[in-house]
Each structure stands twice: as structure tokens, then as C-alpha cells.
């Protein structure tokens, strides 16, 4: 078989698809860990429906000899664990790539796929010539498109191996994932040892399962290895590297900056962070699940007023319930960090898909004018350092900070060098020591709008805090002059913060000499950088959205392109608002799927060729 023989493998994408709840995440972890242990830089992204069991889900694992930043649309190897995967991923295998599937699943007619929704059914049926085609016709189409077919009776294989090992049918079926991974790795000629180790790590708390899966893997290797015609080699060892996702990184970043308190209300994809901290008492964070997001945010504010470093995570719907409290933190100058994990909006929208559509909301959230900072992370690694920075900022400037994350970051897992946690110091903030009596918590004699803090409950002193406009000790005032002074004091934080950060923290620019500059923020960075390799293009990543970096000079006389995960191009509007510049091209995506390197590359080439429209929608994605 001609599996990728022509070129040395430097970059490989493996996809596994199957029903939600069927364990394909485990499959992806095993595959990724096996390669990571062999020194490959791996990353895995996950697509799934808002459903607990049964609907279609898939993961892509990319392995490369160098760290990567994004994913391709087309895969080298697709392991289809069910018929629906076969139907849905038409056109997704590279020419010369491999389709591993179970021929038994391919017998079904399309209409028998219970979880295939109407729109997908109609589209696939049309692609396959109409009517109610059997899924086999899809397999045939993959073949026509240049994929190598590798029919393997996966389910039967799992059963047989299970039987051989003396386990019952249900348990045996649970090893299907290991079967798929082992078959794929064996096909690629990758040694089995790293997989065996990965299995051990995966089932470390369930030795029996570990044993079973190891044996399954060995047996599959025995059967499939002969089919491999090339060797995917380990390129080293995993070394000290970590394998984690944006949620983990963000949680760790906060811990590094001294996080003490986190209240939460469950919501996808934001609560992986508190769950993670809750499950790890070694983080020493008081984590409290509460009755709703109103409670979550106000409880964190209370904890912060008492002197704890407090943060919380949420996504759009929950953030919507927090906007009143955001202004409360603003007027009371209370440090508060909210990580906003964006997902497909509006409203409940696409709860498990990615988007950057909450930017405008975050920037304007809360009535009236008050200082806040908004920053966005572009990668798992940045998530760590930014979370720490964000928490520190909130402490130093005594204001609410919104740290923009998204579903893509939350559910993208990658290998990384360990974080340099010891380089991060919890920002002490300006504290008043030994104050007694009535304390001017909101003193106007402040620099950069920051008055010394004393937590509530500090012995011997006292003051008030109110959501109303107030005087220096925190009593309500409606005096026009005092009001003006307080507004001006609070507003001063923004420029002080800008100065403290410096331009390096506020934005990053790549290849600034190029005549065409792509601008964006957050998750669109990685794919832009990979897509523009070798092109005469630069990229500017706005790390801070508020305050907005002073980038006007960099834009002069360039062709400007904005790349954004939102239909209206929210970042483009912000750019115009802040600099007066309107982009020449706005490239957006809003179908909830991550941008692929191929489609972004094509769009960039069209821009350079002068054939791109002003508004261009990226539509790739399964």
C-alpha cells in the first residue's frame, strides 16, 4: 500500500470520528501520547455536538517535528469508528491518505444513521448522487478522491481480542478505541512501546483496564503490522514536556499568580478550569459551585474585597449575567478576573463550537463608564502567561479584567515545554499597612487612579464600599464635583495600565515590513502565522483589546486585512474605532469550526493576487 511513502513524514494529521460518549477522546489521547513519547510535537483538537451520548464527534491529532500552531483541513489518516463518520468526512482525506474503517458499518443506508440531522443528510445524499445511498457509496467516493481504503473489522477485532483475553462483550467493545489507535499506529509503522506506555498512563487508576487495553494493542499490532509499508519513527523522547489544553494552562497561570478563590456555575466550555482546580487540592484554591452566574461573580467580588485573589470563568450566556457585577467591581475598584471562554453565539447558539463573537460584548459590558482591561490569548502557552498577567493586572490596578479565551483553546491539547512558574510573582498591589480608624479606601490622592488597599476585616480600621458614587471613605455622594473627581480618578487607571504594560505586552507583530498586514487577536493568530509562511505578509496580534495598543503608525500605507471569528468582524470595527483605519479585506468565519490552514492560505493568496473580495467568509469544517 502506498501510504505516504513518497515523502518523509514531518507533519501528520490523524483523525478519529465516532459517536459522542464512545471514547474517541481516549483514542486521541492515546494516539497523541504515543507520539509525544516518541518526541513528536503533538496537538489535538476536538469537535463535538452539544450532546452527552450518540451524536457525531471527532478529534484531529497533528504530530510534527516542530511545534505547530494550527490544524489542516485534510488529514493523512481517518479512523472511522462508525458509519456516520464515513458519511460526514467526505473530501477530508488527502490524496494518498488512508481511510481505516469497518466494512460492516458501511452497509447501512444513510437514512439509518439516527443522529444525522436533516441538513447533513440532504447534503451528503446529494453529494453521493441523491436518494438514500448506502454508506458504502461514501467509501467509494473516498477512494475516487484518492484515499487508500483500509477496511478492518474493528468491532469484530475488538470482540475477538476480548474473547481471546476472556473479557465479556461489553468490556471488549470499550477497547474499540485502543483498537483504532493501535491499528493506525501499526499501519504507520510506529513502534508499539510508546503506545503501551500511553495506555498505562491513561488507565493508571484502573490496572485491570490497563492490562486489557495493553493486550488489545499488542494483538492489533500483531495483526496489522504486516500491512504497514513504512516506519513512522520516534524522533526523540517527550522529555520534560507537558501535554495539556488551554483550560489547564489558564488554571495554572492563575495559581502561579496566587489565585485563592474561584466560584463557578457550570457552563461549556468554561468550567473545565474550576473542575480541574476542584479536583486538585494541591492547587490550594477554594472552589465553590454556586446557584448561578450572578452568585458566582458576586461571590468572587466579595472574596476579593476581603483580600483573596479571586477569579472566575464563564462563557457568553454566563458572562451576560455578570455584566451588572462587572460595573460593581469597576466602581468599587475591586480586583476581579473573568476568563471568558467564547463559543458560538448568539444566545445558546453553538455551545460546543468556537467563535470570537463576544469581543464587542466584553468591551462594552456594563452600563456607564468605568475602567477595565480586556486581553485575549492566542495559544495554550499564552493562556498560562496571560492568565497570570491578567490576575496580576487586576490586583495592581484594582479593576476587573476580562481574559478572552475560546472553545478552540479550551479543547485543544498540545505538548509544550514546562511553564516557567517561578518567573511569575503574585502582584501584591498597593496595600495600606497598619491603618487605623476610618480608612480612605478611595483616596483621591492617588497615582494612576490606584489608592492603597486594605481588605475588609483588617483589624483596627473600617470603611465602606458602595455601588453608588461615593466619597473617599466609601459613603454615597451625589455631589457633582466629587462625582467628577471619582470618575476621573478611576479613568486614570487605563493610561497607567497602558504605560505599565508597555507596547511589547500589548501587541505582537510578525514580519512588519511586509506590504500586507493581517490583523487579528486570539485564536486566529496561529492559523494566520502558519498560513502566511513564505508569503509577503505580516501579522499583528492585538493582545490587549482594552486599552487598545497604539499601532496607528504600523498601519500606514499597508494593505490591511482583518482575520476574525465573527460574522460582523467585530475586531475590524474595533480597529476602525481606535485607529480610524478600515481594513481592505475582512476575512471571517462563523460556522463554529476552527479555521484551517488551507482555507486561510487560499484567502491570503487571493488577497495578494488582488482577487479577494472585501468581505470573505471561510466555510470549511465538518
Amino acid at each position: 500500500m502506498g501510504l505516504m511513502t513518497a515523502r518523509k513524514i514531518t507533519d501528520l494529521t490523524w483523525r478519529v470520528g465516532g459517536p459522542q460518549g464512545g471514547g474517541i477522546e481516549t483514542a486521541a489521547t492515546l494516539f497523541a501520547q504515543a507520539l509525544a513519547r516518541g518526541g513528536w510535537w503533538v496537538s489535538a483538537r476536538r469537535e463535538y455536538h452539544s450532546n452527552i451520548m450518540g451524536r457525531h464527534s471527532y478529534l484531529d491529532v497533528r504530530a510534527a517535528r516542530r511545534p505547530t500552531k494550527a490544524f489542516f483541513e485534510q488529514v493523512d489518516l481517518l479512523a472511522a469508528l462508525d458509519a456516520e463518520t464515513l458519511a460526514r468526512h467526505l473530501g477530508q482525506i488527502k490524496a494518498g491518505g488512508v481511510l481505516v474503517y469497518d466494512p460492516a458499518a458501511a452497509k447501512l443506508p444513510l437514512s439509518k444513521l439516527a443522529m444525522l440531522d436533516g441538513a447533513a443528510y440532504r447534503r451528503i445524499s446529494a453529494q453521493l448522487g441523491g436518494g438514500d445511498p448506502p454508506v458504502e457509496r461514501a467509501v467509494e467516493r473516498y477512494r475516487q478522491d484518492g484515499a487508500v481504503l483500509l477496511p478492518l473489522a474493528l468491532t469484530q477485532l475488538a470482540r475477538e481480542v476480548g474473547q481471546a483475553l476472556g473479557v465479556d462483550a461489553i468490556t471488549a467493545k470499550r477497547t474499540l478505541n485502543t483498537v483504532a489507535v493501535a491499528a493506525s499506529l501499526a499501519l504507520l509503522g510506529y513502534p508499539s512501546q510508546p503506545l503501551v506506555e500511553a495506555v498505562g498512563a491513561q488507565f493508571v487508576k484502573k490496572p485491570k483496564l490497563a492490562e486489557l487495553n495493553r493486550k488489545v494493542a499488542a494483538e492489533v499490532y500483531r495483526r496489522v503490522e504486516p500491512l504497514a509499508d513504512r516506519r513512522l519513527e520516534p524522533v526523540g523522547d517527550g522529555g520534560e514536556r507537558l501535554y495539556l489544553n488551554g483550560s489547564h494552562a489558564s488554571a495554572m497561570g492563575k495559581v502561579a499568580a496566587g489565585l485563592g478563590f474561584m466560584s463557578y456555575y457550570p457552563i461549556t466550555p468554561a468550567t473545565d478550569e474550576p473542575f480541574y482546580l476542584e479536583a486538585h487540592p494541591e492547587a490550594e484554591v477554594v472552589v465553590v459551585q454556586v446557584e448561578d452566574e450572578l452568585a458566582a461573580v458576586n461571590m468572587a467580588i466579595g472574596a476579593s474585597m476581603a483580600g483573596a485573589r479571586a477569579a472566575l470563568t464563564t462563557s457568553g450566556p454566563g458572562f451576560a449575567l455578570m455584566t451588572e457585577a462587572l460595573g460593581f467591581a469597576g466602581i468599587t475598584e475591586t480586583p476581579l478576573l473573568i476568563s471568558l471562554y467564547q463559543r458560538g453565539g448568539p444566545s445558546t447558539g453553538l455551545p460546543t463550537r468556537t467563535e470570537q463573537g463576544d469581543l464587542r460584548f466584553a468591551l462594552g459590558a456594563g452600563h456607564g463608564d468605568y475602567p477595565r482591561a480586556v486581553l485575549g490569548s492566542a495559544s495554550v502557552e499564552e493562556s498560562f502567561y496571560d492568565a497570570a498577567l491578567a490576575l496580576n493586572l487586576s490586583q495592581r490596578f484594582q479593576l476587573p479584567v476580562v481574559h478572552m479565551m475560546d472553545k478552540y483553546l479550551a479543547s485543544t491539547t498540545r505538548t509544550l515545554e514546562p511553564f516557567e512558574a517561578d518567573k511569575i510573582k503574585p502582584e501584591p498591589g498597593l496595600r495600606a499597612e497598619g491603618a487605623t480608624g476610618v480608612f480612605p479606601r478611595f483616596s483621591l490622592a492617588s497615582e494612576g487612579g490606584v489608592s492603597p488597599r486594605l481588605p475588609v476585616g483588617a483589624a483596627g480600621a473600617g470603611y465602606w464600599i458602595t455601588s453608588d458614587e461615593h466619597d473617599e471613605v466609601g459613603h454615597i455622594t451625589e455631589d457633582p464635583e466629587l462625582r467628577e473627581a471619582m470618575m476621573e480618578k478611576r479613568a486614570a487607571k487605563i493610561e497607567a495600565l497602558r504605560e505599565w504594560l508597555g507596547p511589547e505586552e500589548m501587541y505582537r507583530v510578525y514580519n512588519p515590513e511586509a506590504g500586507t498586514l493581517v490583523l487579528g487577536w486570539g485564536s486566529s493568530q496561529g492559523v494566520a502565522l502558519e498560513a502566511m509562511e513564505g508569503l509577503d505578509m505580516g501579522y499583528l496580534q492585538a493582545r490587549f483589546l482594552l486599552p487598545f495598543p497604539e499601532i496607528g503608525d504600523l498601519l500606514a500605507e499597508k494593505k490591511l486585512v482583518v482575520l476574525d471569528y465573527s460574522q460582523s468582524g467585530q475586531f475590524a470595527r474595533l480597529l476602525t474605532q481606535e485607529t480610524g483605519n478600515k481594513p481592505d479585506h475582512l476575512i471571517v468565519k462563523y460556522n463554529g469550526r476552527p479555521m484551517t490552514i488551507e482555507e486561510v492560505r487560499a484567502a491570503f493568496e487571493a488577497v495578494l493576487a488582488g482577487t479577494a473580495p472585501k468581505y470573505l467568509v471561510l466555510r470549511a469544517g465538518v
Partner: protein
Amino acid sequence: MELKLADYKSEMAPDWCPGCGDYGILSALQTALYKMKIEPSRAVLVSGIGCSAKTIHYAASYGIHTLHGRGLPVAQGVKLANPKLTVVAMAGDGDGMGIGAGHFVGIGRRNLDMLYLIFNNEVYGMTKGQASPTLELGAQPKSLARPNIQAKVNPLMLAFAAGFTFIARGYAYDVKNLARLMQTGLEHRGLAMIDILQPCPTYNNLHTREWFAPRVYDVGAEGYDPRAPREMGDAERAERMARFTQKATEWGERIPTGVFWQAELPTFEERLGGFLPRYPQEAPATRGVGGEAKRVAALMKGHRVA
């Protein structure tokens, strides 16, 4: 230095209407804290928004005047961050039983060691006298354009359903007994609520001093025992609850005040200590800086590729 009652008063002059029941509540609270010798600076008073919410400005302590309906979550945040503080949350009936009702139910499940005061004047004082959730169906105090179309909710019953371990009612014009009640509530280990009948002479012309005076009485004085021991048989539990329900729903010619329910249950802080052994000695607000990199290292360990 000996603490004086005056040490619990701030410089700020109240701007409540003459005769407002809030004066009595403020005074009772100051008395209770004073009697218990709780340092003003170790007490944090937390309110929502409303006439009642202004109370915190008139006491010398730390006072947090939050958002409408959000006093309870803020108060819980303070308490959890620094469990050694005395935390008193307070709310108007609209604030606490209307917009804040969800938090009322939520905190009931937690049994934090806190005191919660409901200023029950049956109206939304601050927004000019609309019906509050405790106003009776069909009642029409002077600001209402038409008789109240909604039935009232009973704070005592709701607290019981939510799981409060100390449930009481006081009367704002009876400062002495109210102060005593607050003291008992503060001494209770767990979540204590006092529903305070608070006349609002400006908007509630139905339930005035004259109306209440002949009606309120002390359940304790009549031999009512609120205690519900930790271990109870089904029959005993049923009997206690029935007794509670009867008193809690009594209203009209006679209006009971005093403690209605007092149960024992581990506090939320204690439960939390079960997961985090260094809490509350090293509570998040007081533990200071240090050890962060070690914590991160411990977390990273779980993510090592090999």
C-alpha cells in the same frame, strides 16, 4: 480599650424618613455587636440596594453596599475568603425575597456561619412603595394603583424549605428584643435568618406601629421550643416541623416573634476544611504570598508526557 456602644456608630446621619423602622434595626444591630464585644473592624456588614441597604453606612465597621439582590453572594465571598470575620448580610424584602430569592435558596444549602437580616416592610421603599414579595394578596397600601395581585411569600417558610438552621422573626420597634435575637443569631453556629417586621410609615399605611403593637408577641414567652436536635425519629421530626409550620404561618390577630427553628449541621466552612486541610488557618484572604510556583509544579506533574 473598652468598647463603647458609640464605637459602633459612624459619622453619617441616616436619611431615612422620620419614624422608619430601619432606625430600630440599626440600633439593635449595633447593640448586639457591642454586647458581644465584636470589634467593629472584625465585622463586615453587607447589604443590597434599598432604603434598608443604607444601614451599613451608619454603622462603624466594614460595610459593603452591593447590588440589588446580591448581598448574599458578596457576603459569602467575604466569609469564605476570611472565615474568622463576623459577617452580617441584610436585605429589604424586595431585595431578599424578590430579586435575591435565588440566592436565598442557594445559601440555604450551604449553612455558612452568617447572620442574615430581612427588613420586611412589605413594600419597595426606595422605589416609592410598590408591592414587595411579602405584601398580602389584595392589600393596597397608598402607593399602589390597584390592590396587590400577587400573594405574599413567607420568609420563615422559605428559609425552612431552603435549609436555614436558625430561623427567627423580630420587630423593628422592639429594639431590645431584636438586639437579643440578633445576638442569638450571631451566636448560632451556622446560617441564621431573622425576618424583621419593619414599619415604613411613608408607604405602608396598612401595617403601622398601631397595627403591629397589639399583635406581636414572643413565642419563647409562650413556651415554644425551637430546637431541632441533630438526631430525630420520623415522628419527632414530623412533630417539630408541624409545630414550626404552625407558628411560622400564624398571622393576623396574633403575630409571633422570636426563634422558630434552630438545628445543628456542620457549617460550610467545616465541610470545606475536609477537602482543603489548610483552610481555614490559611484562608485565601489571609494566607499571604508564597508557594505559588510549588503549587504549579504539583499541577504540572500530572501533565508530564513521560
